[in-house]
Structures are given as C-alpha cells and as structure tokens.
C-alpha cells in the first residue's frame, strides 16, 4: 500500500493525529486484563500483514513529521545523539541494517544501490539521494549512526557486548520515556535500569540480559513496553522535564480523551555482524484515549489494567496524579464483559460496548 504521510507536529500546537488505519494497527501492549513486568520477548520475524510487526523497521504515516521533530530536538540539544569512539563500526553496521531492510521492505520508498563500497541511498519520502563510500566517515554529512537514525523512526541504543554484560555506548535518543542518554551513556545493563522499581528484585533484568547476550545474527527479538503521556509529545526527556512536566496538570474531564495518550514502545533487538554489538531500536507509538476506546476490547482492558496497576508502577510511569481522572474516563468504556486473550483488536468478534 502507499502511505499517506501526515503533516503534523508533536509539540506546541500538537496537530498529531492517527488515521483509522493507524488506530487499527496500533500495537496495544496488553495481552490480558492485567499487567506486571515480565521478560516478554519473542522472535521478530514479521507479523500479520499491515501490522507494525510485519516489517523489520516499520514506516508509517508519521514518518516525515517524526523526522522533522527529531531534527528540532537535535538542533536544540546535540547531546541526544552520542557515540563513544569504539562504537563507530557498530554505527556502520546499523546503517547497513537499516538501509538493506528498508530498501527490501519498502522498495517504493527506499532504494539502495551497491557497487563494491560505493553506495547510493535514495530516501524518497525525505527527498534524499546520497552517494557515499561504505565505512568512510568522511563521505557522509554525519557519523554513520546519526546519518541513518535521522532517517529512521524511533530511538536507537547501540550496546557493546563485553564482560558478559551490555554497555550503552552509543545512541540516538529523542523520543524517550524520560531517560537521558547523556547521563546513561557508558553504563551497563543493570546500571541504566537502576531506577526501575521492583524489576531487579523480580530477577527480570538478569533473565533479560541472559536472553539478549545470546541473540544471534539474523534472529532479532522484540517486546512491547508502555507508559502514559499527556499530549502527543515525543520528546518526554528528563532534559526538558522542567518544560513539559507542567502539561500533566492541564488534564480536565472534558479534554482527557483527546490529551491523554497511551505511549507504547516496540522494542527490537538485532545482533550486528562486524562489531558484535546489539542494536536496540525503541519505536514509540502514541494513541489518544478517545481513539483507543473506539476498539471495544482495548477500552475494556485498558481500564482494568490501569485500575489494578500497583501504585509504585503508576508512580514510576509518571501518571499517578492523573490516575483517578483517567479511570473516570475509561470506566465509561468498560461494561464488565470478558475480553478475548491477545493484543489484537478483534473488531469482528468482540461484542460492542453495552453501556
């Protein structure tokens, strides 16, 4: 299908909108009516046609506008993109992975022509047609990681593997759920997850690390993570928290359906061939509650999940102060009917709301 790209903003006037297509393919993160941490990994080998899992790097209607927003963030704060010196090779690995994947998965949008190390990359949506020498930094306008991740939705963390651990030694991070690359760069897996409540005690990170250390080339993995964000703000960074934090106080019963968004991260993990690094793309999808509840199963389930979420998780995810208002809103869309297992919308089989 041909994607109709939106012209929209993720700041100031917030003109971001999801089309019906985007709503129905939204990666709803709850497979049952409750939520607790788990190492919810699965192989990233495609998915149902049209779903966000189908392609290796999903491109959707927000692509051009998200890339414009990334450029704005970087102009304001170049520290959002950093790479320790030993990670340059991993940057080239990543550039290759994204260019090959996108040109194969979206041949109408992206082209890659290779003659030895002379490469030509055509990105039609962004109007880019560049010829460069593979592995020659001087032939690109930015370092390889920055060059390609200015053209790919989602954040990217490049993880070096040594001493039986993963080290966050490079990244492009402009659509993050409140963590700082500049602060965390150089940390190992346990250190950068240190502020997460409960999960350490549950052994989640030990098991997750074990899984990730063993990811092989050609066998990527994925999982979903989630939080809540007021307004469709991609850049919920700690760096700018003193500016956006106050937006959490602007919710009212009248505007909450439009302003409160469920924020879902599609996290994928790829082994890179030359560097043996892992790349950890963290793709952010936003959906307004009023759009989400148009899928009856999701409206019922989100209400139950948010209602029963332990207080420390609601605090960590940053919506504790607004939980009562969110629940008032969502309860209108929960008629108590059972929900089918799994994350899919099941529009044809789930009963309509009876309230």
């Amino acid at each position: 299908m041909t994607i109709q790209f939106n012209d929209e903003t993720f700041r100031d006037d917030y003109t971001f909108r999801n089309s019906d297509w985007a709503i129905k393919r939204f990666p709803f993160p709850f497979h049952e009516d409750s939520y607790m941490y788990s190492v919810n990994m699965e192989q990233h080998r495609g998915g149902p046609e049209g779903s966000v899992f189908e392609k290796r790097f999903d491109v959707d209607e927000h692509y051009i506008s998200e890339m414009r927003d990334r450029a704005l963030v970087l102009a304001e704060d170049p520290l959002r993109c950093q790479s320790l010196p030993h990670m340059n090779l991993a940057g080239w690995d990543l550039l290759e992975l994204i260019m090959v994947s996108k040109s194969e998965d979206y041949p109408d949008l992206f082209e890659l022509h290779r003659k030895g190390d002379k490469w030509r990359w055509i990105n039609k949506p962004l109007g880019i047609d560049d010829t460069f020498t593979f592995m020659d930094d001087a032939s690109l306008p930015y370092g390889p990681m920055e060059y390609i991740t200015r053209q790919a939705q989602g954040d990217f963390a490049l993880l070096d593997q040594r001493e039986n651990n993963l080290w966050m030694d490079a990244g492009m991070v402009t659509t993050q759920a409140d963590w700082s690359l500049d602060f965390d760069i150089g940390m190992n897996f346990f250190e950068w997850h240190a502020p997460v409540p409960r999960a350490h005690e549950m052994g989640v990170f030990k098991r997750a690390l074990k899984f990730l250390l063993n990811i092989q080339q050609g066998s990527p993995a994925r999982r979903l993570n989630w939080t809540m964000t007021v307004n469709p703000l991609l850049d919920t960074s700690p760096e700018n928290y003193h500016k956006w934090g106050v937006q959490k106080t602007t919710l009212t019963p009248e505007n909450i359906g439009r302003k409160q968004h469920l924020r879902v991260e599609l996290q994928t993990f790829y082994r890179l061939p030359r560097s043996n690094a892992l790349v950890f793309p963290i793709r952010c999808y936003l959906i307004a509650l009023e759009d989400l509840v148009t899928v009856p199963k999701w409206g019922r389930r989100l209400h139950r999940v948010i209602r029963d979420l332990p207080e420390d998780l609601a605090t960590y995810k940053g919506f504790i102060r607004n939980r009562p208002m969110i629940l008032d809103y969502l309860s209108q869309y929960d008629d108590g009917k059972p929900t089918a297992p799994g994350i899919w919308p099941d529009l044809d089989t789930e009963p309509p709301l009876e309230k």
Partner: protein
Amino acid sequence: MSRFTFPPSIPSRPVYGTLAPREAAQQLMVADAEGAEALLDLAAAAPEVMAKAHVIYIPRHSGEALVAKLREAGPAILHVSPSYLASVPRLRRILSDTVMGAQIYLAGTEGLIGQAMNETLQAGIPMAAIQSEHRGSVARRVQCVHCKGITEDVMTDPFVCSHCGLNLFVRDHYSRRLAAFQGVCIDAEDPGEVPEPVELYR
C-alpha cells in the same frame, strides 16, 4: 567519626569498601579531607605499602593536621594539592606511567573518589586494581539533567542548581562517566512548590 554507612540503594549507586594493602611494584593513593585517615589506617597495617606510595592529598577543610600525620606515615612521595582540579594534570601524568599490577587507593568524599576513579579507568587501569573507601562528608556531586552543569558538595535535597538556578531533587542514579548523581527539577509539575531542603541522609 569519619565513617558513614550509606543506606541500601539502586544498582547504579556506587558502594565503597575498606582499603586493604596489596603487594605491587607501584602504589598510588589519592585522598581528600578525612580520606587521609583511611590512608593512615592502611599505613599502620602495611608500612611497606605506604613506603612505596605516591600520595596525592587534598586537605580541603581539614587543614594541616592530617598532612603532618600523612608525612609521618612515610610515603615515597607526598603531594599536597589545593583542590582536586589542580591535582588532575599530575594524576594523569602518573597514570600514564603505571606498570602492570599497579594498585590504586582512593579515599575521602564521593566526589573525589568518583572523579579520580574516572581518570584511572580512562587511563586503562582495570577496575579490579582500584579500591575506594568513603570517609568524611556525605556531600554529593550532582549533575543538573536540564542544563548539564555540575554542582559540587551538595548537602541538601532539594538544592538549587549552581548553574541554572532550578530547584533539583537528587536521585540515587549515578553516572561513573560523569562521576555525578542526577539532579531533576522538583517543581516541574507544581511550579513554585518546593519542599524545605533537608540534609542528606537525615
């Protein structure tokens, strides 16, 4: 009493031990203020280690008393520096010459230990060759996540960023690369509602 037991915390927060003498061809010790007491304990336990040591000492508020005691302990070289920053070129010069198996001892405030540890690791010394012992002030070195400025010797929570003036609360999240804890705006969601600062660990 210069020792303090830090409460249990999250995995990125450093933990400190007690310096123990280790045989090596080269012994490098860096300390500030009451950190000298940890070096003196070490010297008492193993005078032969101190006799080989190159000591860099920053007295800060503790003045001359501990300098004299350190000198009596008989290090090979004792360098007294007016501030940590002033000692950095010398520290780098020494680290550039370290031999295989050299032992590094860091003692004093968290800010001193963190920064000297960073220099040591950057020089390629393995973590296993570095020991640290906290003594004296529990003040923290904190980076403002908003303006990136680092405020030294933070004694209260919240505190005012010495660079941008925001009111920051101090997280236990710690970056070894920056040798700093993270400070985050405390009144972002309720501008102007800043709790009374309380002394750390009280």
